[in-house]
């Protein structure tokens, strides 16, 4: 019997929705291990985290002041040591990827990142994760405890497993090494929602012809609501039309949205590597032989400059906007 720690994600004091997936995955593991689910929450999001009881959390452990990554890592490692968790689940998001390896090193445990499925076999965690940018899946067993894993956003179903949650304040963190200072933040012009976390992605390729044309895709994104984000092919990023943060593919982000739009993207193998596990793929391309149609669930052969605005309008109409 062992408890599982779910590391919730908080941004600017706000609990992020991916935390629900993290708790749901932790619940599944805890049920197999016969243990409870603790949630580690940094900062003052404890009250919001109590809502995670809906998805199977038994106890929320607030860690005061743990915002900086090295402090968060020390706090989580201390919790795991003190409580003897058998497994720790992170989100494979920017902040999750930053903190998880530090925790793993402090606990001298291996870490499985970007996990898309997990089971428990003989008391050990066996996780499935993509390798070679999604060209293959590896099933990997973690020997010994604790087993650390980070789960890919949008893959794990949110569980409906309501229970009473206790909210406790965990011991504050002891001093960490230092030598690391956050000096500032410069917002980019792009939207705040990262392409790897969005549930709908609208990606544009070289066929968009000019960065000036991106308002067409921005409009489609806006029509799709606030869980949609823009993505891009590498050709577009290399041309300096869009920031690298938006690049989807082997040398960009791997995305698993519920709905992916490939707009004027040819579908090179390195691009497919980053998006082929999306739920539903829609492609718009004027070349009927473009390889993207080989992975698309629905395709329209046509001029993106005509189809994209019509699509945005039709979606707006559907949503009654």
């Amino acid at each position, binding site marked *: 019997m062992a408890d599982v720690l779910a590391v919730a994600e908080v941004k600017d004091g706000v609990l992020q929705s991916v935390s629900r997936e993290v708790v749901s995955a932790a619940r599944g593991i805890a049920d197999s291990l016969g243990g409870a689910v603790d949630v580690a929450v940094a900062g003052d999001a404890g009250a919001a985290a109590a809502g995670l009881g809906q998805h199977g959390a038994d106890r929320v452990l607030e860690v005061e002041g743990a915002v900086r990554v*090295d402090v968060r890592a020390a706090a989580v490692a201390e919790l795991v040591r003190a409580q003897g968790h058998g497994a720790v689940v992170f989100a494979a*998001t*920017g902040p999750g*990827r*930053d903190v*998880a*390896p*530090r925790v*793993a*090193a*402090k606990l001298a445990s*291996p870490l499985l990142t970007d996990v898309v499925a997990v089971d428990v076999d003989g008391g050990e965690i066996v996780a499935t994760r993509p*390798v*070679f940018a999604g060209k*293959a*899946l*590896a*099933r*990997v*067993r*973690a*020997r010994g405890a604790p087993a650390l894993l980070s789960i890919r956003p949008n893959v794990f179903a949110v569980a409906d497993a309501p229970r009473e949650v206790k909210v406790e304040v965990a011991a504050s963190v002891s001093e960490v*090494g230092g030598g*690391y200072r*956050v*000096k*500032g*933040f410069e*917002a980019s012009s*792009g*939207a705040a929602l*990262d392409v790897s976390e969005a549930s709908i992605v609208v990606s544009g390729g070289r066929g968009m012809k000019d960065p000036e044309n991106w308002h067409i895709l921005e409009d489609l994104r806006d029509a799709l609501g606030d869980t949609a984000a823009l993505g891009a092919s590498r050709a577009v990023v290399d041309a300096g039309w869009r920031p*690298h*943060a938006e690049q989807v593919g082997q*040398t960009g982000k791997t995305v698993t949205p*519920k*709905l992916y739009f490939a707009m004027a993207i040819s579908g090179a*193998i390195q691009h497919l*590597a980053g998006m*082929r*596990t999306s*739920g*539903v*793929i*829609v492609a718009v391309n004027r070349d*009927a032989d473009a390889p993207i149609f*080989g*992975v698309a*669930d*629905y*395709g*329209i*052969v*046509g001029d993106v400059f*005509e*189809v994209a605005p019509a*699509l945005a309008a*039709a979606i707006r109409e*559907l*949503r009654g906007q």
Partner: protein
Amino acid sequence: MNITVCVKRVPDTATRIRIAEDGGGIMQDGVKYVMSPYDEFAVEAALQLVEAAGQGEVTLLSYGPRATGETLRSGLALGAHRAVLLTGEPDMDGWATARVLASELAESDDGLVLFGIKAVDDDQQQVGPMVAELLGRPCATAVAAMDVDGGVATCRRAVEGGQEVVEMDLPAVATVTKGRYEPRYASLRGIMMAKRKPLVEKPAAEVESGLVLEGLTYPADRPQGRIVGEGTEAVPELVRLLREEAKVL
């Protein structure tokens, strides 16, 4: 200031990956190996930093099979000064790899150790920060650009919605992503000179892996999709399918 860059030899991103019959690995024939693309960014960052400082040397460090020597030579041809190859077979356990690399780096007094943000084979994004923990040094991840001045590295991190600026006291560790650094091409002279640069090969420290690979499989094939139609006329049908069949709108 001297800099070490950790680089990994990985299958070229355009390579078709074919799983061996027993599922225990990939078939090697026909696979072209290259330096992981993000490690190329890290090498470029290191070269630019020593060039800007007007002094300092760049060491490349890799843990891998003997054929990795070829990958290291390609990095020496770009301008790195020396290379160290720790021979062995790394597996997916980044924590094991981190310990191998850290045991070599413990002796080093280089001001910076740079990594790629991720190796494009196992895609773990973990070895850099783990090595930093083992060495007890600060670590900035996802660094798009960095400058060093007076014992302090100022890094611009690519994060959700923008760039975060962090300062680290040296010695420090950073993982590099695409940003300021465009990998240079090797010149003919560089390639010639690389042949005479020191490349030390020694067996990797023995560490035990905490992971067991149970098997590799191909991802499920996507069901054959369909062309809904041509041009704007197909739009209403597409929206209907997305709503009623795929249920995603």
